[in-house]
């Protein structure tokens, strides 16, 4: 063997070894700066789906759900994957089954039931859903649910409970909403985070600002976070400050009902300052702000809006719907959106949680360059 040939072989083997052992790290080092979107790295770290559910595999434990409930959930998601339904559909299906049957394949309840609803989705043979044997088959019942869901125009962008109601036609059209958080947890646990993927795409991908995740959440304002939640310098800062230029549209982070639209801007001595002009560091309060009550008793708050917000109290909003624009009213030293997340329906400071990990978990990471 000639020397040249021997060197050629050694070079080839080395190149293969480098690619095999550290190709990813090498590529990441050289290509790192080319990443188009740094924000969805956070969601990517948590996973954005891409896992095909195997109903016969060992399934994870999820909150207080029993093995049979989790197995039924796996069947529902698996059927959705086989039919090419995007992940928002799986979350809607799981939430619907949580309401109708608590993910249990319910038989006829006899005298306690005055109609013929059966199975995971409480489908009625007399209403044309199939034979009693068919609707008691979880895979058949799931397929029928998805067939009806896919036939609803615009189901991908509706509030979860509205999409579910269009299929179920129940006497309690808003009952599905409260199951959205648990349905999100179930889908994430069984699919490596598919509820954090773009809701209406079949091919799993993390969410960019302007897109809605399968869990039903979206980034309210795109812009860098210039101040964090309860920092050392600002221990009473109950949200994050997202910098954006005046007039940038603020979007509802998820579907819900508007519960507060208000101007809060006064001086230390109580003198009203008003929201028809910019505030300042000497002005106290949230300026023009909006609060939205979401499924699962989650509340979001959006402060310092430029002018009277575009929504009114009692109005239902969809995820991503414009609610107002970024401004500088109230206690503000430059245009930004002060964004808060509260749990347990508690809009006081004790209900506030750090919006950054919360939004990462929903697949709608805050941040990004303005």
């Amino acid at each position, binding site marked *: 063997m000639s020397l040249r040939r021997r060197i050629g072989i050694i070079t080839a083997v080395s190149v293969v070894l480098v690619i095999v052992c550290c190709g990813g790290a090498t590529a990441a080092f050289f290509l790192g700066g080319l990443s188009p979107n740094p924000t*969805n790295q*956070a969601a990517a*770290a948590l996973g954005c789906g891409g896992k095909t559910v195997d109903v016969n595999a060992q399934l994870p434990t999820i909150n207080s759900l029993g093995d049979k409930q989790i197995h039924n959930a796996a069947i529902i998601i698996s059927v959705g994957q086989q039919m090419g339904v995007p992940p928002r559909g799986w979350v809607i299906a799981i939430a619907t089954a949580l309401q109708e049957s608590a993910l249990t394949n319910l038989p006829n309840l006899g005298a306690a039931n*005055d109609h013929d609803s059966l199975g995971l989705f409480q489908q009625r043979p007399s209403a044309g859903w199939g034979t009693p044997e068919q609707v008691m088959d979880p895979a058949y019942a799931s397929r029928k649910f998805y067939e009806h869901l896919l036939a609803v125009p615009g189901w991908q962008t509706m509030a979860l409970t509205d999409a579910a109601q269009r299929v179920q036609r129940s006497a309690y059209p808003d009952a599905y909403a409260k199951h959205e958080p648990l349905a999100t947890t179930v889908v994430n646990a069984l699919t490596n985070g598919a509820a954090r993927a773009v809701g209406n795409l079949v091919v799993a991908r993390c969410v960019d600002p302007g897109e809605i995740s399968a869990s039903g959440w979206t980034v309210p304002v795109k812009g860098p976070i210039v101040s964090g939640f309860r920092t050392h310098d600002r221990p009473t800062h109950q949200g994050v400050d997202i910098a954006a230029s005046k007039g940038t549209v603020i979007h509802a982070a998820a579907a819900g009902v508007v519960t507060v639209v208000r101007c809060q801007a006064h001086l230390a001595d109580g003198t009203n300052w008003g929201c028809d002009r910019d505030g300042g560091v000497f002005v106290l309060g949230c300026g023009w702000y909006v609060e939205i009550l979401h499924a699962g008793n989650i509340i979001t708050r959006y402060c310092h809006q430029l002018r009277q917000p575009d929504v009114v109290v009692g109005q239902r909003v969809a995820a991503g719907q414009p609610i107002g624009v970024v401004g500088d009213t109230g206690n503000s*030293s430059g245009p930004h959106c002060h964004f808060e997340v509260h749990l347990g329906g508690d809009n006081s400071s004790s209900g506030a949680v750090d919006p950054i990990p919360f939004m990462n978990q929903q697949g709608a990471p805050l941040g990004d360059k303005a």
Partner: protein
Amino acid sequence: MRTVLRLLGTRYGAAVALLVLIALVVGVGKLVGGSRPDQAPLGSGTVIDSPSPNPSRLGDDGVGEPPSPPPPSTSPGATDPSTVAMDFTQKWLHHDGVTADQWLAALRPYATKALQDRLSGVDPLTVPASKVAGAATATDRSQSYVDVVIPLDSGALTLGLTSTDGRWLVDSVDWQRP
């Protein structure tokens, strides 16, 4: 050394040398340039400083302790939200021997247009309860938005009511098993 130099003269040697050169230039550039702070993965929870605006000089620029919601306001002569909720519930429960149209027609006077739309096409046979089993509990969310929970024989009904000009209507219906 001479072997190496001779190899550089060959095609393969030149190719390898060029690759090494490119890697060196890009690699040194990345290392010297470092990572600028504005390239931090913001979504991962990193908080950065920005020259302008800089609200971090502020204390709490939020609401502070939010004021309690103003009490729900009902126009003189109009029915209060709990009574509207209970009237709606009685009509909602009355589902035996009525057609879908009759059931919905009975609910209309107490329901917003949006709720009427969401209840259209509902078979009243699917109402999962038959009687009220306790007193209504109201939670005021704002001056024009109230939640009312009504215990039923087979679970609990939660109604969301909104008011327009002081007149209350049911806007959402949630049902929960015990």
